[in-house]
């Protein structure tokens, strides 16, 4: 804190930081003018040049620099600055697909960005460097202050300054009362909300000829301040534990299918660095249905809401069926996750899975079942791929195309009217050939490798499309086989995550807020009353000092002065109020 709290002339000039944090003990290292740098710096150190430090001094200097307020401030701003690219450039961890698109669109920038880890800013070494330095700076700043606070808390307030009228906020008046009477009254008044120190013990104060009362309040401000900073550490630790030991995974589950919590069941899985798969909770569940309300009219016509995915779950499905825990049911909704042990299950998406059967030319069933199509727009026009492996090499059948939940032909163009499945229709292109399923290279189920595939055309060479409504079957050209569209099922996208010790983080932020409120709104204040006999009566001086700066002391002073007046003798008025 600067000593300028009540200095009215404290204008726009920057003051150097004061206090023990400014710089090296050797003092002149950084401030030495250029030309003086090579001159001997003092009597004691004449064998060394200015700016030269022993290793120990250097470490000490570095530590002091690192834990100085200035550095903390710069680091704080650097943290803000460092976070900016993360909000502008797409991040791998947030949206991998967008990141990929961005990389494709900017081939020249990508290598540079990659080198600077701009696609995963929050896991990059330089970002870690900033917050680790900040944390060290925080610890180095907080620990000494804790000690100072601890010692200071038990001490009495300092005695009143000799000359109270030199303080910016003061008042004085003369009265005919004895100094001791005034002082006793002052002590009585101040003791209510202040810690007190007096020039003489309470019993002797009444007979003092020249004495003072010193009151101090608002020491909790510093406590709040310390609590805030300590809590920030707690939050960082909690955040660290959560992201190191936790995991987050996603799975697309067609309604009716079950899920048991093991690594192989996830579509995507993002574990923390210290995550242990053996500690995954052995629950399982089955999604029985998915319900959604489509708004039929009004400005948001076609918007979906009221998502519900009723499911049944068991908290333990490991081992023999007889040891499974009893089945319970839960209606999974947005904003209402299901908590099983320490793991939570969230409903975060939905879509359609047309049930499709593909047969080859001989009528053998090559593929049968619901196929997940991914929505491409808000009206759930969805894209998907069917990969049917043929009985012989080179006879694979591939389908690729769109699913329209509510299909309509408007002016000859196929249009999807809304997201509800009022008129589900498939419109696919068909391919035959080699899908490359046996090459051992893992493939996405949402993409088809068309390198070995040939698009099927009508006998006259025109484009052939598999256009199907529910319960319809179409024969493929060239006797390649047939495709049947049986109906539609819903799928739900579930996010399953475990964040250990999330309560620690929450506790940390809440404590931080409490500490913050204390450090912002508690006003540390000192009030002094000095009374001494002067010619014609007793001269009473009152002064106050707001140590936080920015406080408004005039009302405080007048309250104190009022309280010093004798109870019913209103004639005694303060003669001079500065």
């Amino acid at each position, binding site marked *: *804190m600067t000593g*300028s709290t009540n200095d009215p002339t404290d204008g726009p000039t920057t003051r150097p930081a004061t206090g023990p944090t400014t710089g090296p003990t050797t003092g002149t290292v950084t401030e030495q003018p250029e030309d003086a740098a090579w001159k001997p710096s003092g009597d004691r150190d004449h064998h060394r040049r200015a700016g030269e430090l022993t290793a120990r001094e250097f470490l000490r200097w570095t530590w002091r620099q690192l834990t100085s307020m200035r550095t903390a401030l710069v680091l704080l701003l650097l943290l803000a600055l460092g976070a900016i690219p*993360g909000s502008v450039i797409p991040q791998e961890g947030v949206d991998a697909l967008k990141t990929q698109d961005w990389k494709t669109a900017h081939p020249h920038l990508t290598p540079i960005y990659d080198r600077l880890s701009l696609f995963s800013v929050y896991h990059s070494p330089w970002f870690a460097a900033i917050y680790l330095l900040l944390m060290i700076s925080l610890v180095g700043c907080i620990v000494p202050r804790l000690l100072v606070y601890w010692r200071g808390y038990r001490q009495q307030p300092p005695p009143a300054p000799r000359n109270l009228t030199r303080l910016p906020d003061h008042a004085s008046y003369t009265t005919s009362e004895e100094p001791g009477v005034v002082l006793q009254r002052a002590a009585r008044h101040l003791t209510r909300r202040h810690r007190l120190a007096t020039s003489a013990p309470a019993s002797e104060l009444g007979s003092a000829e020249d004495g003072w009362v010193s009151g101090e309040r608002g020491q909790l401000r510093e406590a709040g301040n310390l609590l805030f900073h300590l809590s920030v550490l707690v939050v960082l630790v909690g955040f660290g534990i959560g992201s190191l030991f936790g995991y987050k995974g996603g799975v697309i589950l067609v309604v009716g299918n079950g899920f048991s919590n093991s690594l192989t069941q996830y579509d995507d899985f993002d574990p923390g660095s210290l995550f242990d798969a053996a500690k995954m909770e052995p629950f399982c569940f089955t999604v029985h249905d998915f319900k959604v309300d489509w708004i039929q009219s009004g400005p948001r016509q076609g918007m979906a809401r009221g998502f519900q995915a009723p499911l049944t779950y068991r908290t333990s499905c490991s081992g023999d069926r007889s040891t499974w825990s009893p089945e319970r049911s839960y209606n999974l909704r947005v904003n209402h996750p299901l908590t099983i042990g320490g793991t939570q299950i969230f409903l975060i998406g939905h879509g359609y899975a047309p049930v499709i059967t593909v047969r080859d030319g001989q009528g053998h069933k090559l593929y049968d079942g619901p196929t997940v199509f991914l929505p491409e727009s808000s009206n759930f026009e969805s894209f998907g791929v069917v990969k049917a492996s043929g009985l012989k090499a080179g006879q694979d059948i591939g389908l690729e195309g769109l699913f329209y939940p509510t299909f309509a032909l408007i002016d000859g163009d196929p249009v999807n009217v809304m997201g509800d499945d009022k008129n589900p229709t498939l419109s696919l292109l068909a391919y035959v050939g080699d899908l490359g399923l046996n090459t051992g290279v893992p493939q996405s189920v949402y993409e088809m490798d068309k390198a070995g595939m040939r698009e099927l055309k009508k006998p006259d060479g025109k484009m052939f499309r598999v256009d199907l409504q529910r319960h319809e079957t179409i024969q493929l050209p060239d006797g390649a086989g047939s495709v049947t569209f049986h109906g539609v099922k819903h799928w739900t996208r579930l996010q399953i995550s475990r964040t250990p010790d999330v309560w620690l983080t929450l506790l940390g932020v809440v404590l931080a807020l409490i500490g913050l409120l204390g450090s912002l709104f508690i006003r540390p204040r000192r009030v002094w009353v000095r009374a001494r006999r002067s010619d014609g009566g007793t001269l009473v001086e009152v002064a106050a000092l707001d140590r936080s700066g920015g406080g408004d002391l005039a009302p405080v002073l007048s309250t104190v002065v009022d309280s010093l007046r004798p109870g019913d003798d209103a004639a005694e008025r303060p003669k001079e109020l500065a």
Partner: protein
Amino acid sequence: MTDLQWEHLSNQAIGAAGVVYFLALLAHLIEWSALRTVPVAAVARTVVRAPATAGAPPAQDGTVTASSAAAPPQESTRFRIEMFGRLALMLTVIACAAHLVAVVSRGLAADPNRVPWGNMYEFTITGSFVVTAGYLLLRKRYGLAWMGPIVTAIVLVLLMVAVLWLYSPIEPLTEALNSPWLVIHVMSAMVATGAFTLGGITSALYLVRARAEKRETEADHGYVARLPSLATLDRVSYRIHAFGFPVWTFAVLISGPIWAHQAWSSYWNWDPKEVCAFITWVVYAAYLHARATAGWRGRNAAILALIGVATLWFNFIGINYFSTTSQHSYASGAPAVSLRAH
């Protein structure tokens, strides 16, 4: 009343509020243009002059008394100043009331009734309401009369932006927004936004006044000369920020993550909006920190506050339009690949 009637009421009230804000701005401009011809000292006791906030250093008045030899304003000018000052305040109060009606009826027009914070239009009209309400509430306490023309102008512009570009018809809340945390999270975010905006205005004026004082030109006439002293501006700015910061902390670092944990499965997603809110938090933390420890008062602190308010408003409006990956993207046409895309 039916929903449709409520909706009409809301739209009309917004229009009315806009018109009255404009009239209030005009009244303020007439008031201040009248004041231009009058030296500061001569009208020191009229309503317009910011009541020298108690505790303001007496040194500030030194310059004022020095020029009090200037001729007192004519009776008509004096009357005009006082009259239009009061008129402007009254109009602002009326506009604020209409503004409130617009916000409330917007919520009542939805079926089912809800808080009116479902999209950018609603955020903007509510956020600007908080700015006006904050100004009116703090006006007396901090002597903010000088802020009048700026607040009315800013709110007017915000309302115009909202009505012209951001307007969207009333619609039910998207599923992810349908949570009690909407009320808690968004309300605190908006209160903090209002406070930071007022703080930003104060800081900007601090810089303007500091510059004018440095040049020492025309210190006696005009708007800048009538701003409170630098020390007062600095203190008012600090107090407003000190109020806004804990509220913002609650919005961004407590209620936000709790809700995110419920709706999106993870309390911190490094979503662009979250990151930007965090950046804002850090900048304001630096502001308070700088004042408390490094002794950065005045100019440097004011610059930090302006950076803070810039990140705040960029976050509020910019992220919704420029960022493609934000889950917080309320701006039109939410992609529906997943429920979280709101």
